[in-house]
């Protein structure tokens, strides 16, 4: 575990040295979400109904925004070779990097989202569910994005390609994340939706590190 922890902490420290990168992601999330009430106008009922979808889509785009640097910086400065040559599984390294990405994007997004939900007129219970679904759903986004980032390493215009690869794979997470909040609004239980989000996260956790590692080995050749 020494290597896993070392890599995880290294990535957090690198973000700490350049807090601007995270600030841009969070600022994008805020600005993108706030644009919708401005564009649609002050129709509280309509806004409350579409809030879940908008907040989830914005969170998805925001978490993609920082992903193109996830492996690219290691690829460009040669650190990727050191990870490939570390005497422990590359799958763990992939997991450590995605975990660090989640801590600096997914987690703050989940904390920030309820405050933005207020602007859409969501009730307290919906706000709580919104934060909860993002908390459970964003790890999946980090892992899927990690795979797309690893696959597009070394590609020209990798950023656009990354979004094109990752977005379709994020659709199930998006659907169940948004529908959990809608279910709460109509008085149904959100637990089923949340459970499915959790299942998606666990499946990603159990499969994607291997896929990411394979893509990284390919990039290292």
């Amino acid at each position, binding site marked *: 575990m*020494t290597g896993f922890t*070392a890599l995880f902490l290294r990535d957090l420290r690198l973000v700490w040295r350049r807090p601007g990168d995270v600030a841009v992601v969070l600022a994008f999330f805020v600005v993108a979400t706030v644009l919708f009430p401005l564009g649609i106008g002050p129709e509280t009922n309509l806004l409350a109904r579409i809030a879940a979808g908008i907040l989830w889509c914005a969170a998805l785009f925001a978490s993609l925004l920082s992903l193109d640097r996830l492996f690219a910086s290691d690829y460009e400065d040669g650190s990727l070779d050191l990870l490939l040559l570390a*005497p422990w599984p590359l799958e763990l390294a992939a997991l450590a990097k995605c975990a660090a990405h989640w801590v600096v994007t997914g987690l703050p997004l989940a904390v920030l989202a309820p405050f933005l939900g207020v602007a859409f007129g969501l009730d307290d219970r919906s706000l709580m569910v919104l934060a909860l679904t993002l908390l459970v759903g964003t790890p999946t986004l980090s892992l899927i994005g990690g795979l797309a980032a690893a696959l597009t390493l070394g590609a020209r215009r990798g950023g656009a390609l990354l979004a094109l690869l990752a977005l379709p794979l994020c659709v199930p997470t998006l659907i169940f994340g948004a529908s959990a909040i809608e279910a709460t609004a109509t008085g149904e239980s959100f637990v089923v939706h949340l459970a499915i989000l959790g299942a998606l996260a666990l499946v990603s956790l159990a499969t994607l590190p291997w896929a990411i590692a394979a893509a990284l080995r390919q990039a290292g*050749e």
Partner: protein
Amino acid sequence: MTIALLEVSGLSCRRGGRRVFDALSFTLNAGELLALTGRNGSGKTTLLRALALLVPADKGSIRWRGQDVSDDREGWRGELAWLGHLEGLKGDLTVAENIAVAQRLRGQAEAADLDIALTAFGLAKLAQRPVRTLSAGQRRRAALARVAASRATTWLLDEPLNALDAAAREALQTALAAHLAAGGLAIAATHAPLAGARVLDMS
């Protein structure tokens, strides 16, 4: 007959349909340094990457203590210290942090070797400077200090003398000599001669 520590036999590698090197064989024992020479594009870097299993070889075998390294990839990687033409240093971390992280990535606990390696390469005063503020030669020295602090038995060095000044070259020779004297071995792709090296011409 004793088994050589590292035994490479019949190693062949093709990249993009072109044969980079073919049926390459050599053995290396504790305390030996192998210098790979040859014109640009003769496959020195590819051979180093193939030895590190970063690039798959088409044919041939690499044996470490008589055992094929592809049977225990992680064990073999644990024996290696790597210096590529990219330094593998993070610009936002200090020299000392970079080396400490690299040590922990190799599964080592933080060791006193750090200070020794930094001093050996004249980096003691630069230890707390972010790597992005260093010159090319200073970065190269930091990467060499990382290798020296790794406690690996086998050093794989790609153009280790690049960008180094006379003092740093001297420091590298000293570090190499100490590594070899301690029973380590090293393979270096280089254009400049290295003292005490057996030469393998790739062209």
